[in-house]
């Protein structure tokens, strides 16, 4: 059970003045149950890439295999694929349309061919997972706050019970509290359900805390692919493509340059705290 991309390339508006090579020969393997951060500057092709994973955009060349099956095969059921690979778009609250919250979340499951009762059950479950309590069920989705709307929209995709969940900038435009809440919930989902999660973001800080693998995109190509600490080792290179490593990376590297014996691979505040305290302890003993 995995997604494999082989030599995937995509060109927007080919043979016109607006021609853009959004993806250039991308090769990736996404095994089951991974929590992946997909990072890139605006226009790096990350949104285009994730739209390939559920067949919304068809690659100009190359192949994509989901669980070993070629999704571009003639008789491949794209709609079933879209149920298995759930994609939450940027600003997903802009896609809400139903009269009340529950029916909106039911839209996905109903399209999968479930009965109204089953769909409702799935919807309630999904709403519970994103922390929307039952009292909101009958409210119009347009009366909710921005953060709540976004959760309802995410629930709309979760209710389809995807095996792979892709979120395109799920925290854009949210305040720090709303951002942390959503990311915590996604991380909880990953642990609890064991589903594969791909988090698209341009903020290293956001993803460093949660993900186990980072894929860095630049100008339609995969620049780096590895564990956060491996990727952040290239922090100078990341800067040159308009990205930045988490701030703690800079702190530990500066300390290291000044002669402190710290671990330069620390990526979260906790790790940095540990290694800095450790370094000071060692130094204290020497003195």
């Amino acid at each position, binding site marked *: 059970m995995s997604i494999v991309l082989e030599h995937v390339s995509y060109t927007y*508006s080919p*043979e*016109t*003045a607006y021609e853009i090579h959004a993806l250039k020969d991308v090769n990736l393997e996404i095994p089951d149950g991974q929590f992946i951060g997909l990072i890139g500057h605006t226009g790096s092709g990350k949104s285009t890439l994730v*739209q390939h994973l*559920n067949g*919304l955009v068809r690659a100009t060349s190359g192949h994509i295999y989901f669980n070993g099956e070629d999704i571009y095969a003639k008789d491949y059921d794209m*709609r079933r694929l*879209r*149920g298995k690979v*759930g*994609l*939450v*778009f940027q600003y*997903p609250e*802009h*896609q*809400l*349309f139903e009269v009340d919250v529950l029916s909106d979340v039911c*839209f*996905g499951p109903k*399209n*999968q061919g479930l009965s109204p009762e089953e769909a409702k059950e799935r919807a309630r479950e999904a709403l519970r997972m994103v922390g929307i309590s039952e009292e909101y069920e009958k409210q119009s989705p*347009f009366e909710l706050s921005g953060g709540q709307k976004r959760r309802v929209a995410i629930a*709309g*995709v979760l209710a*389809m019970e995807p095996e792979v969940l892709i979120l395109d900038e799920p925290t854009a435009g949210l305040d720090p509290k709303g951002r942390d809440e959503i990311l915590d919930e996604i991380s909880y989902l990953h642990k609890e359900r064991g589903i594969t999660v791909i988090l698209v973001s341009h903020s290293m800080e956001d993803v460093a805390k949660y993900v186990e693998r980072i894929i860095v995109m630049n100008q339609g190509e995969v620049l780096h692919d590895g564990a956060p600490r491996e990727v952040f080792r290239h922090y100078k290179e990341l800067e040159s493509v308009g990205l930045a490593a988490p701030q703690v990376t800079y702190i530990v590297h500066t300390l290291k340059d000044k002669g402190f014996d710290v671990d330069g691979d620390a990526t979260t505040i906790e790790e940095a705290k540990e290694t800095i305290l450790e370094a000071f302890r060692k130094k204290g003993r020497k003195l």
Partner: protein
Amino acid sequence: MIRDITLGQYYPADSILHRLDPRVKLMGTILFLVGLFLIKGWAGYAVATVFLFAMIRISKVPFRFIVRGLKTIFIILLITLVFNLFLTPGDRVLVQIWKLQITDKGLNTAIFMAIRLIYLIIGSSLMTLTTTPNDLTDGLETLLGPLKKLHVPVHEVSMMMSIALRFIPILLEETDKIMKAQMARGADFEHGNLIQRAKSLVPLLVPLFISAFRRASDLAMAMEARCYRGGEGRTKMKPLAYARRDYCAYGILILFLAVIIALRVLL
């Protein structure tokens, strides 16, 4: 699929046609359309064809880009063609199928009508492809300026037009995005009978309307924040001024129209 509509979309390039004063292009398009309807006979169409293709060459807009706009009127074109072909009475019957007959006159009108329609669309697409929406409404506002004396709100109308034109690509993009988002939730816009398909548009249209209203209210707010209060006493950053090339263009246009009229009168 949704990107195929080129009508009202600017194609950036550096050509004489792009640099022309928008008033010239507006007048030119109108004169060209008038010319098209004055044509009678092959010679006139030959002149129009040469003129149009010369303009396309000068504009540096790829030909494929221009033709793409024709897709949207394909059905209308087909209907016109069929009606003219079968329903024009004539002297000589060429083909008879049951009660329908194709006459020599019918064939003539059908072909000329089709050419006329195609040139009409290409001609006006060429204007919008080489003129930014801002320039276009600027030109229109200046051309219609005299109507202000008759209390026609020329400035307001042209402002509305420029906003509408500006929003076409934005709304198209938005439609594309919402469509994809709903397809990711399993929506199906392509299958089913007419009623099912109409129903499937609800998840697309509701968010689209909401977003259009939100954008409109944001824009109104932004304009008010910058003290917009209509055309009274408003000056322009770049007032339109004719250059030599514009007078030359007028000359060419008048020559074109003169040739067309001459051909109509003489032949």
